[in-house]
């Protein structure tokens, strides 16, 4: 164990000596490293992918700082199992594709099973779109877990589009074309007709 520690520390020391040409570059590097960690935190915490604009706004960054920090983040991630993935709706962290067979072997059920909580959330979005997070919580009567929203975003079944003009301007959620594909529908009109939920609730 001690051997391993030594190796890593030596490596790191060496790298610092190499890059440390002038003291100002060290400071600059540390500053960008700090930003890259903040970006990493936001990517780990966000339910939906984050656009460059969102990142710049939340962390008050210039385009140059963001580019540098993202490059540094990418570099740091290379030592682990995650990769920075850019999708049409922004950046997200995802487990590198090379580990997909390991995941499938250990958690074979992970891909097929859709939990009741996930289906309920998806149904509320599908039938009542556009909806906010709190609309979903209101209909389901329980707080919405970030993990469920994240899974729906990951599957590409929902997107954020626009804001509701109320307190806090919450984002509005919609279903996507990928959602229709996954459920074999060509148009939202083809969703099974919605029963009168209030009538059912009142009677049960």
């Amino acid at each position, binding site marked *: 164990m001690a051997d391993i520690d030594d190796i890593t520390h030596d490596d790191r020391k060496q790298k610092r000596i190499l890059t440390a040409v002038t003291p100002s570059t060290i400071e600059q590097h540390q500053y960008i490293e700090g930003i890259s960690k903040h970006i990493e935190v936001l990517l*780990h*915490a*966000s*339910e939906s992918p984050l656009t460059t604009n969102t990142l710049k706004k939340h962390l008050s960054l210039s385009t140059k700082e963001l580019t540098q920090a993202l490059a540094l983040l990418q570099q740091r991630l290379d030592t682990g199992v*995650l990769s920075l*993935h850019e999708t049409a709706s922004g950046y*997200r*962290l*995802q*487990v*590198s*594709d*090379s*580990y*997909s067979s390991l*995941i*499938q072997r250990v958690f074979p059920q*992970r*891909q*097929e099973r*859709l939990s*009741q909580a996930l*289906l*309920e959330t*998806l*149904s*509320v979005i*599908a*039938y009542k779109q556009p909806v906010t997070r709190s609309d979903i919580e209101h209909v*389901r009567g329980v707080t919405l*877990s*970030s*993990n469920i929203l*994240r899974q729906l975003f*990951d*599957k590409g079944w929902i997107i954020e589009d626009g804001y509701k003009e109320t307190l806090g301007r919450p984002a509005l959620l919609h279903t996507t074309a990928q959602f229709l594909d*996954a*459920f*074999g*529908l060509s148009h939202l009109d*083809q*969703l*099974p*007709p*919605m*029963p*009168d*939920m209030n*009538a*059912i*609730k009142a*009677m*049960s």
Partner: protein
Amino acid sequence: MQSERLAEPSAEVQDMSLRIYQTPVQHLPEDLYVPPQAFAIWLEQFAGPLDFLLYLVKKNNVDLTQMQILPITEQYLAYISELDTAHFELAGDYLLMASTLIAIKTELLLPKPETPTDERDPKAELIERLEEYAQIKVASQRLDSLIRLERDVFLSLVSMPNQDIMNAELPNYSPNMLIDSLFKMQLQPDYQMHSIKADTVPLSDRIASISRQLSTDGTCSFYELLDKTQGKIGVVVSFVAVLELMKRQLIGVVGSELESTPPTDDDDIKDNQIKPLKLQWLA
């Protein structure tokens, strides 16, 4: 963190001040007229009648053991009388407490019997309940001060590898899964039952699916409601599901017999065979 809190238990116990919209409130306006609607909103700040009683005890600045039940009772009843019937749901638990207090008050006003009875002293019982509640209330505040996942610390959310690589072909989901999930959400009992044994044909799934079919098609025969792939057990579970839905008055039976033309003399036994009953959506 824990030791820090233990160091000053008295401060914590005393910090039970009333808050209205995050603003601490020391006293209720004594002589001010509080409109019933506003009073209901004010009362909603309490977790229940015991919480409210505790507030009154604190307001009167008395020790729980030294508590004079009579003034507290009178104040309680005075406040509750303000509550109008529009807030009956909220009032229920408070009215129950009021009746307990009235019973205690009556007992205190009556002359004491010479011989002690076996019956429990209602005043002592109430104080005991108040103490027990106060204890749980403080315990819940301590629980709330623990470092909690998804408030103070956060799990990392990370996407799984590319879908196409994860599984060459996406499973096809039926859109009926969506509507069934909504039925399940509405039709589930008061709270979720956690059965240990996994049913091959879950009753809740059948209830949801039958509800969907009937609400869409109006009427169906029992046979039409069956899912052929579920086999014998499917028939049994479907039958139980139909009974359950009938019990909840969501579906009913229509006998084609009853609605057909009245029997005439020509009707003989041959024609009088029982026609299949149909199930109908009532909601």
